[in-house]
């Protein structure tokens, strides 16, 4: 395609401008974080005497190590279980096509647009009753349930396109459905499972509403939930707030940059199918 020079440059200019609008707020946060704790710095302003110690202070007051442990724990509790049970359900609905699977699919799809705020109130009373309120399970278990509509729909989309002949050859050898599932179908489904795993990890890490309502202690929450609590406590100390927020963001940024291709691809596919 031939594009004239003027258009080429104006296009690049627009792109650079947009990237600046995306990044400049973070730069502003960074320079603010280096000002003396308790001061009120202006926009972007490199301090005469950068207070790198702010990051150490923030690490301590935000209880970063406990917080990271908690977030990782919740992700490791939520994502693998969600992957296994949604893959199994997607297999049964999309491949085994058990009678009534259309209705089952409809039942799951029904939950796709459900806002979490819509059920968080009864979840609170329900969890208070069964005694898991204020534990990490209070966040993880509802999340697994809330992921099912998307995850089952996603895995069913893969299995519905798998030709039945795949099983037939193995069935002749006397393998049961259970073996077929684990030995043949799961390995074949690795790409959609991996994308789904990335998606659900990002969603879990960033989950806020459930953490806010169902767990009081920030060190038992997800990263986003802890960040919200940190903001609540240090809203008046802006340099410390910026330092703490950047610290809590750091793991997300590192993982994103390391796996950017996969993460972007997964999130794009996720919104197309969702």
């Amino acid at each position, binding site marked *: 395609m031939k594009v004239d020079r003027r*258009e080429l440059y104006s296009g690049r200019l627009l792109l650079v401008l*947009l990237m600046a609008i995306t990044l400049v707020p973070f730069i502003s946060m960074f320079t603010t974080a280096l000002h003396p704790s308790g001061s009120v710095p202006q*926009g972007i302003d490199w301090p005469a005497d950068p207070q790198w110690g702010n990051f150490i202070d923030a690490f301590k007051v935000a209880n970063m190590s406990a917080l990271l442990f908690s977030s990782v724990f919740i992700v490791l509790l939520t994502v693998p279980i969600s992957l296994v049970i949604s893959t199994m359900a997607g297999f*049964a609905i999309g491949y085994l096509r058990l009678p009534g699977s259309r209705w089952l699919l409809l039942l799951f799809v029904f939950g796709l647009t459900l806002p979490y*705020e819509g059920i968080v109130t009864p979840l609170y009373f329900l969890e208070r009753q069964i005694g898991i309120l204020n534990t990490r399970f209070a966040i993880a278990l509802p999340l697994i349930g809330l992921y099912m509509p998307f995850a089952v729909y996603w895995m069913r989309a893969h299995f519905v396109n798998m030709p039945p002949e795949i099983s037939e050859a193995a069935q002749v050898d006397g393998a049961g459905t259970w073996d077929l599932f684990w030995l043949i179908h799961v390995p074949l489904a690795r790409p959609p499972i991996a994308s789904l795993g990335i998606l659900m990890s*990002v969603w879990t890490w960033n989950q*806020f509403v459930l953490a806010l309502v169902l767990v009081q202690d920030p060190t038992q929450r997800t990263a986003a939930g802890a960040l919200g609590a940190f903001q609540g406590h240090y809203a008046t100390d802006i340099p410390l707030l910026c330092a703490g927020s950047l610290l809590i963001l750091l793991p997300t940024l590192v993982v994103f940059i390391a796996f950017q291709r996969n993460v*972007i691809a997964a999130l794009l596919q996720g919104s197309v199918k969702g």
Partner: protein
Amino acid sequence: MQAADTSMPENILNRPDAQTDDRQRRSWRTSPSRKVRRQTLLGWLFVLPALAIYALFVLLPLALTVQYSLYRWDGFNVPEWVGLSNYRTVLTDPDLLNTIFNAFRLIFFFSFIPVILGLVVASVIRRSSTGSLGNIARTVLFLPQVIPLVAAGIVWSVVLSLSGLANQILTAIGLEGITRAWLGDFDTALPAVGLIGTWVLLGLCTLLLLTGMTKIDPALYESARLDGAGAFREFLAITLPSLRQEIAVCVTVTVIAALRSFDIVYVTTGGGPGLATMVPGLDIYVLAFQARAVGVASALAVVLILLIVIIILPIQWLGRGNGE
């Protein structure tokens, strides 16, 4: 493998019994009916764990929301049956109506601007930057989509504060007169919250639309050019119709994000000043856990859930309609 693919038309889905017949025929040697029954039982065992946790932590709370919405309850004492009166409150109380109206105003910022701007940016990128700049831009523009919304809220509450970057820039270009605490001013708080949403969702829309554009057959553009179509005509005649599905996806995702907004509002304004930025998601939380009006909160939740479904269904239908 190829033959297998074509032997599996989608319409089998519409006739679940066809598959059963097939299985029966295939394994007739080993007592068909018992085998089929075992298959079905096994299938249900595969679905059971997902179904159970979905029923317990989503469907049950959903039913409870509907139930709570018919009672007056403070969360502790005995609930009092009030019929549909909570719904009457939600649909007549000026504050609650304003809350719902705010969610619709946010659609302009969360959905309209990102989709329109995303279309412009994506067509510019497609025509001019495919090299390394395009790749870097992809990553950078996606950044707001990966970080927690809470973080986006904190970042922007610093930028938009009285001493923040926004006012610093305005002062630098001689617009000191309009500087203010953007999130604390009755007139600007809602647009300010909305623009944070724009910032979060623009990258996602741009990349989704860009992916769609790369699938358009270049020959279409060639022939349009031969007919003497300019860039704008080309955009209207080819790009826009071909992107129907992608646009529907963008609109769906962003409208849902606007209607169920919570994180950004909670962190930046808490619904204030006054109720200037109060949205249904946040109001459910405030009503249920601060005002102790669980019934009204639940009625608002039911209204919100229905609103989302009513608005999203036609968009989905339009997106698929002529797309296939």
